[in-house]
């Protein structure tokens, strides 16, 4: 069961009648379990308090202050949030991030699904193909690959050389032209389709072969079988991938930072939201504003995830 379906089916309640002796024994055991559990969970609890929830509350407080690290935070109420409403650069960074998410995530998932389906069971060389497709997603988050990307899509980069080799002479600087720069990063995202592909492959394996056989005997075409058997049975996994990729994509940073040399340029065309947040917080030391921006991000990711869960009722099919 995936994290997602786990969350939606979390239920307590194991109500079974027991005799008094059984109850007493159970209580003793529960007490022992209780102590052990809290001991085992001690590091996690400490982390939750000190590294996660504490800082979350602190950042909520800071988001209502003006704070530059040098002087103590100064309470300014909702001023940061009002400023965010009027911050054109922030609106632009939201637009860039949404474009990246709305185009990049579905494209990457569609590619992952398509390749996973081609790589169906009994395929010769499956392990080799899977390795080749999976490798980029292992390396893709690194600065080295982002640097490579920056060169590839430069004016004299590999892409223009390859285009030249097939007769298309172009001197477009893909990363220095505001109308293309974001698309090179989207392409980098799609290139790392390997890890959702592996998840899809695992999901496809769990669909019983006999469903397809039975449908084929009844005369269903490949397309019908894909639509009526594969897609519904795979929908929980599509959903899982979608939610995870969406959350991750909203936080993308490294690629935009490296490709633009940290500026979000050219002309702010790769100014991702998290890059702008970094610039505000750690470039200009407007910590209060950065905290407010972080909470807007939480809000956006939270609302989108909730929306995803709501919509999932209409298209995600649980076979149990």
């Amino acid at each position, binding site marked *: 069961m*995936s*994290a997602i*379906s*786990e*969350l939606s089916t*979390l239920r307590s309640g194991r109500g079974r009648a027991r005799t008094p002796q059984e109850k007493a024994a159970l209580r003793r*055991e529960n007490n022992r*379990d*209780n102590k*052990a559990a809290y001991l*085992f*969970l001690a*590091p996690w609890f400490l*982390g*939750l308090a000190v*590294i*996660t929830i504490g*800082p*979350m509350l*602190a*950042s909520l407080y800071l988001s209502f202050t003006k704070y530059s*690290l040098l002087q103590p935070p100064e309470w300014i109420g909702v001023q940061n949030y009002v400023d965010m409403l009027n911050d054109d650069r922030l609106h632009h960074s939201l637009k860039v991030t949404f474009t990246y998410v709305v185009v990049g995530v579905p494209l990457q998932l569609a590619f992952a699904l398509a390749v996973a389906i*081609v790589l169906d069971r009994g*395929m*010769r*060389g499956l*392990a*080799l193909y*899977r390795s*080749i*497709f*999976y490798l980029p997603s292992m*390396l893709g*988050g*690194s*600065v*080295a690959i982002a640097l*490579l990307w920056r*060169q590839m899509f430069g004016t004299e980069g590999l892409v223009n*050389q390859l285009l030249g080799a097939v007769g298309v002479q172009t001197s477009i600087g893909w990363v220095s032209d505001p109308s293309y720069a974001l698309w090179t990063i989207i392409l980098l995202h799609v290139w790392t389709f390997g*890890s959702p592909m*592996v998840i899809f492959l*695992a*999901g496809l*394996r769990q669909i019983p*072969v006999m469903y397809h056989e039975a449908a084929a005997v009844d005369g269903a075409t490949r397309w019908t079988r894909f639509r009526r058997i594969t897609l519904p049975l795979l929908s929980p*996994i599509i959903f899982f*991938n979608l939610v995870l990729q969406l959350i991750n994509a909203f*936080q993308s940073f490294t690629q935009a930072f*490296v490709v633009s*040399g940290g500026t979000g340029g050219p002309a702010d065309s790769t100014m991702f939201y*998290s890059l702008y947040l*970094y610039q505000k*917080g750690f470039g200009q030391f407007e*910590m209060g504003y950065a*905290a407010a921006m*972080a*909470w807007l991000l939480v809000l956006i*990711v939270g609302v989108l*995830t909730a929306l995803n869960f709501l919509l999932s009722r209409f298209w995600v099919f649980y076979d149990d």
Partner: protein
Amino acid sequence: MTDLQESPAPLAAVPQPPAPRRRPGRSLARSTVKHLVLIAVSVVMIYPLLWLLVSSFRPTDVIFRTPGLWINGLVLENYTGGWTALAQPFGHYIVNSAIVVVGAVAGNLFACSLAAYAFARCRFRFRTLWFAIMLITVMVPIHVVLVPQYILFNNLGWTNTFVPLILPKFLATDSFFIFLMVQFIRGIPRELDEAARIDGCGHGRIFLRVMLPLMGPALATTAIFTFIWTWSDFFTPLIYLTDPNAYTVPVALKQFLDATSGSNWGAMFAMSIVTLVPLFLVFLFGQRFLVKGIATTGGK
């Protein structure tokens, strides 16, 4: 590349019923087309990486004129020059990264396995609530804890040390791995630890003697993913490490952009390859676990 070919598919051992009979001619044509498409996609996927590797052995001025993958005479100057191009020899940054990675892997193995055992095998008060909180923390964007965390570590005087990069792992903040291990433990028969309990083992001993030895694959997956993510992590070191002597590999590599403003591509490519080699080796030898681990989380 033989290792790649030999590594078995995770569920290959499960016997599959024979595929339905098809007309042989059509299925041969279909599989040929399939392979052609897959080979074409493979080439596109791999080409940039191979080109990066080949370019790291070319003089910089040739890199800009050669889209192909052939090499006329190996040039090693990019490596020798790149190694010493920054404030410290590149080995220094590799050592920094290695310290952080080892610390992070140890932390995640230690703290996440303890937490996972408790969630999977102990009954305790508010278990469901804590578990839900743990799952939600997987989704919390780091940005929302970033500023106060920075202030905290800064006030403790821990910026420009590796503590902010390692300590959170010992406090099980990578809850993704807790979840992964919980899933794994649920697949281990309860009879095993119940038998140990009848023999008088407490939770501590069950965890150490029964559970940990059986959790090998989950621990390996965690170690490998932590290695890859920590080695590649750019954001956290960028924020906490401002002293060039403390830089980890990604931040050091980024300096090639600032320092040479893109003129010394050869050295930059050579050092890029150096930083990718550990990732590639881990991928090569850990692939089996990676695929299994990632499939466990996504699978129902």
